[in-house]
């Protein structure tokens, strides 16, 4: 049987990140192609609720690593733990949600393990028995197809919206506590958080978005977009030049340098 696919799940304060389910769906789809099992790993502290939620998916095994040094995310602790788990599971592919947190530690993890890395994947296909990964390049203007050379584990982060969370197959995952050989080593001290600007908007969760680009013209045209967003009950967003002009706060920036979104309705004005 082929080596497993290992899905690294993301949680914060015990709540599962939305994209963790997309990562499970991606992992299951890939495991089907490769003909091996799909396993998952959840790390943190106080994970009862998250473990219960994840154990209802079709996974060959759920590895749980609980440690007080994992209560808050730090790349040092996460990379140390994941390197141990990956070393034990020997996966063909490791699937991670392409979140800010993942990108923060992904390069370090690939370097530590000396394995291949393909970030921000939007899809995959097989050809000549090998996998071909699709990912955007040049600020999303083009798509590239990437292959991995040689026998190595591949770390793959999957882009938001590329694999539907609804597609994650249900089942019963056996839960196993993973015994760490070494204590996790946090490499940063978390001092706290601060809000950006006045409003706190998570555009990745928005069902409807009215997005504004440079093509809208002058700043006074923004009120038209605002009216439309209000009429629809949609969130207002913008591409980089509009944000740089100060017409909207930076937490409303979307695109390759901003947030990745997957609304049901997206209205693009001058983009």
């Amino acid at each position, binding site marked *: 049987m082929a080596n497993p696919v290992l899905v690294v799940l993301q949680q914060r304060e015990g709540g599962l990140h939305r994209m963790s389910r997309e990562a499970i769906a991606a992992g299951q789809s890939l495991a089907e192609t490769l003909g091996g099992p799909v396993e998952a790993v959840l790390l943190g502290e106080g994970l009862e609720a998250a473990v219960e939620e994840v154990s209802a998916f079709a996974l060959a095994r759920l590895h749980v690593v609980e440690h007080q040094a994992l209560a808050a995310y730090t*790349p*040092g602790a996460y990379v140390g733990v994941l390197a141990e788990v990956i070393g034990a599971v020997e996966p063909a592919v490791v699937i991670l949600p392409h*979140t*800010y*947190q993942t*990108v*923060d*530690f*992904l*390069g*370090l993890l*690939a*370097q530590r393990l000396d*394995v*291949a*890395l*393909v970030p921000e994947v939007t899809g995959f296909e097989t050809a000549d028995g090998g996998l*071909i990964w699709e990912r955007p*390049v*040049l*600020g999303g*203007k*083009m*798509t*590239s*197809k*990437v*292959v*991995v*050379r*040689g026998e*190595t584990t591949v770390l793959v982060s999957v882009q938001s919206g590329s694999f539907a969370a609804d597609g994650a197959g249900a089942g019963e995952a056996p839960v196993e506590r993973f015994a760490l050989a070494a204590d996790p080593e946090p*490499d*940063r*001290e*978390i*001092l*706290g*958080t*601060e*809000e*950006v*600007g006045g*409003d*706190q*908007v*998570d555009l*990745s969760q928005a*069902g*409807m978005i009215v997005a504004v680009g440079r093509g809208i013209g002058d700043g006074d045209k923004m009120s038209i977009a605002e009216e439309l967003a209000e009429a*629809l009950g949609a969130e207002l967003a913008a591409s980089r030049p509009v*944000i*740089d002009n100060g017409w909207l706060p*930076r*937490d409303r920036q979307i695109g*390759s*340098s901003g*947030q990745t979104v997957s609304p*049901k*309705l997206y209205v693009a004005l001058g983009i």
Partner: protein
Amino acid sequence: MRIAVCIKQVPDTEARLRLRRDERWIDEEDVPFVINESDEYALEEALQLAEASEGEVVVFTLGPERAKEALRKALAVGAHRAVHLRDDALEGGDALITGAALARAIEREECDLVLTGSQSDDVGFGATGGVIAGQLGWPHAWLVMGVEVEEGGTARVVREMESGVNEILRLRLPAVLEIQAGLNHPRYASLRGIMQAKKKEPSEVGAADLELAPEATGAAGARTEVVSVGFPESGEGAEILEGDAEVAARQLVERLRKEAKVL
């Protein structure tokens, strides 16, 4: 304090892009090249930190001869020295290979802090800084929105998270920080700066200087290979609603309600 800044020269993505004949990358003929956007912010942040501490800024890039232009631009805005990793054997690597080569070059200069952009605008792995940190054994942070060097060998760092929240953290120095675009206002080169930069020739280092075997670096050492690039499919399923704005808007709302069922 000696600060290393890693910059990358990238094709201007605002320019009209065409495929190269082998369709493995874009045709780089006639495409203007610029300093990667977030790297410009990293450079500005380094200049400000150096000014506050009477420090020195050393800029590094890995790339072909044309990349020297990016180094000259960095010197013109105030970088003290520039190092060009210039060797055909170093070309064509992925983030892991390129990060390893940059780390070797940085080690030779004994730097206290490394700044770089959070992501390149061409290949966009967002991983090079983390790789450099791993190679050097230093802590790092990605998507940095603020840096304050503190007494006692630490830095207070603001990191952007999702949902409009920033995390404030403390790192021990030396460290690698990957800077998010927008945290400062990159300066323009003054005439004096441009004149002074002409006297500062970037130094060149090759694979041998970095003690990297040609088969283990550049394209030969990379574990990933781009087999093709293409424009995303477009036009499929697109439809133009006829009539003036009032008529088209009514039609659109109707269809969003009944067909797409999103309203």
